[in-house]
């Protein structure tokens, strides 16, 4: 069988007039098993092979992609010509010493060693287990594994080759009773092997419990509340709202935003610290190196309320006079790397969740999320919540969204609990035209005052 590196030409063509070039080659083999009810929806295997070359000349970039590896040299020359058309200014690039690394991850249970028949039977058994609950009208379940090889090389002499595996799985249950249509789901997505399916199986009772809440819950009443968000929503906030604002391609061209996002600035409540960490073992956002050959790293974005770092590619690091942070990522070989997160989370504190609940007279404990969108004005749709009255959770509510101004909300965070969890979703993050990208997010329970709850 042809190894990915066999597609590399023995001699890289000379690219006169180019200050820097890089080459990425990827092979991705994906298995997908999905069921709706007991009916298979898609059982498939796919092979995705392709690559690209990015060239830079006098500050301008050219980028060319290919699926057929025979077009590699031609794409390099095309990237060269495009870069030369664009580049008019002095070179702008953060040089790095060359790195040479070859890495293979070793999952506990390699999904390539599990026959497809067993994967199908396991997903079917998950669907069956969910169906046993009387709350279900219908269920769905899915599993996918990805085995990839990535090669990165550049004109500085770096050569990186990574062979890895990731798995993801989900299960969901839907009730179509008198109260309307309600669904509860759990999804896992990590850089581990087939053993991940066991985590989903353990989480099935949570799906049933959550569906029970959703069936009972009344629509929430809109207004301003003190809320406690759960670790998933804390992660959605850290990622969608603050994380995207920390991405330096958003910051670099705008003098006003540069001032708003100035390092050392007191931007948040002192109880808040936010990290982007590409080094956490086995999490889906973790990376050995990014798509520009910069090693993954842990970056403290906010430390005790002070803004301490931005997220960078090599280009934005140069433009802003800072160091690359290993956040240049592309969803695949068909796109150039842009500044993206890895695993973004709010650091845990010392408070107990029970004490936080006890301190609230009138508020909502907000649980689970349909997702959200960020920026200065963020909005997150919660799955459900528990009304807090007189320091106690009383009744479930649903159909509401949390919204607010990022900078005001960062200062309105009153407390963080000592819990901690990181999540990887079935889907992922989208930015510009590139999605979904696998990212991790999470945190503790976070208490926030004066949050606008949009209900009906």
């Amino acid at each position, binding site marked *: 069988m042809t190894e990915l590196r066999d597609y590399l030409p023995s001699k890289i063509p000379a690219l006169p007039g180019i200050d820097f070039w890089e080459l990425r080659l990827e092979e991705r083999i994906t298995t997908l098993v999905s069921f*709706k009810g007991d*009916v*298979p*929806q*898609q*059982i*498939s295997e796919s*092979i*995705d*092979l392709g690559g690209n070359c990015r060239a830079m000349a006098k500050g301008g*970039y050219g*980028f*060319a*992609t*290919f*699926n*057929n590896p025979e*077009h590699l040299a031609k*794409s390099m020359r*095309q*990237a060269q010509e*495009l*870069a030369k058309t*664009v580049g008019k200014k002095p070179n702008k690039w953060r040089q790095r010493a060359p790195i040479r690394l070859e890495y293979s991850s070793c999952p506990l249970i390699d999904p390539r060693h599990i026959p*497809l*028949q067993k994967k199908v039977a396991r997903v079917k058994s998950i669907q069956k287990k969910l169906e046993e609950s009387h709350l279900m009208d*219908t269920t769905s379940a899915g599993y996918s594994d990805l085995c990839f090889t990535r090669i990165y090389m550049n004109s500085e002499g770096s050569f990186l080759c990574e062979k890895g595996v990731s798995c993801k799985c989900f299960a969901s249950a*839907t009730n179509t009773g008198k109260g*309307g*249509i*309600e669904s509860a789901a759990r999804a896992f997505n990590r850089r581990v092997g087939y053993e991940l399916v066991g985590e989903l199986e353990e989480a099935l009772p949570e799906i049933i419990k959550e569906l029970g809440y959703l069936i009972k819950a009344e629509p929430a009443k*809109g*207004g301003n509340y003190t809320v406690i968000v759960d670790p998933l929503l804390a992660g959605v906030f850290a990622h969608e709202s603050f994380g995207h604002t920390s991405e330096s391609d958003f910051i670099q*061209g*705008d003098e*006003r*935003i540069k001032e708003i996002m100035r390092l050392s600035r007191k931007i948040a409540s002192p109880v808040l610290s936010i990290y982007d960490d590409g080094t956490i073992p086995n999490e889906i956002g973790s990376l050995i190196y990014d798509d520009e050959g910069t090693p993954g790293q842990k970056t403290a974005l906010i430390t005790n309320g002070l803004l301490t770092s931005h997220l960078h590619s090599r280009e934005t690091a140069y433009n802003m006079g800072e160091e690359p942070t290993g956040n240049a990522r592309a969803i695949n070989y*068909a796109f*150039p790397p842009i500044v993206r997160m890895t695993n973004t989370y709010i650091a845990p504190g010392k408070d107990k969740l029970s004490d936080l609940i006890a301190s609230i007279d009138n508020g909502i404990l907000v649980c689970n*999320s*349909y*997702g*959200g*969108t960020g920026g*200065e*004005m*963020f*909005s997150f*749709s919660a799955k459900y919540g528990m009304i807090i009255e007189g320091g106690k959770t009383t009744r479930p509510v*649903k*159909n*509401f*969204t949390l*919204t607010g*101004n990022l*900078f*005001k909300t960062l200062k309105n965070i009153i407390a963080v609990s000592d819990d901690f969890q990181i999540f990887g979703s079935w889907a992922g993050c989208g930015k510009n035209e590139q999605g979904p990208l696998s990212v991790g997010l999470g945190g503790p329970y976070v208490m926030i005052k004066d949050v*606008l709850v*949009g209900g*009906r």
Partner: protein
Amino acid sequence: MSAKNQMEELYHQEGYSLPVIFKSGKLHSIQARRHQGWGLRLFENGREGFSSSTTGDLDSLRSLAKANLPYGPRSNYTLPQGNEGYPTVKNYYPSCARTGGKELIELGKQILARIKPARIKDLVVDVDLRVGYGLQHISNSLGLEKTHRTSFFEVSVEASKSKEGDLLNLWGVHFSAKMEPEKALSVTEHILTRLKWSQRIVKPSTKRMPVIFSPWALPFGVILQPLSAGLSGENWIQGISPLKDKLGQQVTHPSFSLYDNPVLPDAVSSTPFDGEGLPTSRRPFIDKGRLVSPLLTLETAKKLRLKPTASAQRSYKSRPGGGFSLMEIEAGTKPFKKMLSEVSEGIYVEILSGGGQSNVIAGEFSLGVILGFYIKNGNIVGRVKDCMLAGNIYDCLQGGFELSAERENPLGSLLGPYIRMDNLTVSGKGK
């Protein structure tokens, strides 16, 4: 493979795009992107196997599909076999597909030059221009063989202005299958008008009021996602659509009609055949409030015992699933200006966030207003901030809404009018 219970279908896509990107008003990069892929479905013994690849090696595709066939979906339908009866769809212009980077660079500079005289301090402008083509080809063992090419020209202009506590993002796009530089240049007028409207900020308080959705706002989770989910044949089979069991019944007010339009001239989404090779046509799904059909593929039509609607959407990586090619909402009679003038207090929205992130299948929407304007006595008086809208589309469409005479298809996925919903919950931080 001649027997109908043994069939094979090969779906191929390829494409080329040339994005030219200006960042913060300066030329940043040019890209040349090529992609190709093949998806193979194998039907044997009442089961379906599927595989996909970017290499086009048919032997390897067949062996992968054969391996998963014993576990695949049950199939008891026949693939299309005729090559007649397909509509003529005009959305390929070779001159558009062949436009070069230098021409796009020139157009980008002209767009920036049109915004510059406005002399708005601290306005940061990004421009993304791209041309290219796409090709889809479908063939099956029963003799079907169809190919369609599309060209595209896309321009997106994003202008942002930030200050402490307020980041304003304005956005204008133009999508077409042919080169339309003048229309691309007019995107700047769209943005400059909104800049003028944004000089004053209004913070609405929480109450119910009329909301006018621009055709720009409709694809952001208000209508496109909930109705696509509600009309999905897959969701009918699963029993989770609120529209199931309502075939032929009145499901909305009679003034609402909804079509799929895969044959709109010059639309990038148009195609003479769907993802399974069936001939397409403009087709009603809700006709004057009456539910006509769900969106069906061959498989879901067979299971629901209904006629297929040629609604199979797919890429080479996926099996066909029912969906809209281009959602089209019938126009009303009232001019937009008249509709606006009749609102004594309300909101006009163009960009929303949070679409698809609620209980979509139940029709719920809960959306943050990214770009919206406050209406007072029929006039736009400022931009709204810290504001959310919530409702249920099925409740909203029962009545208490009005559709404008004008329609637009700004984002390429929905051709629709301005819609005024008279009594929507608006949550805000205003006093």
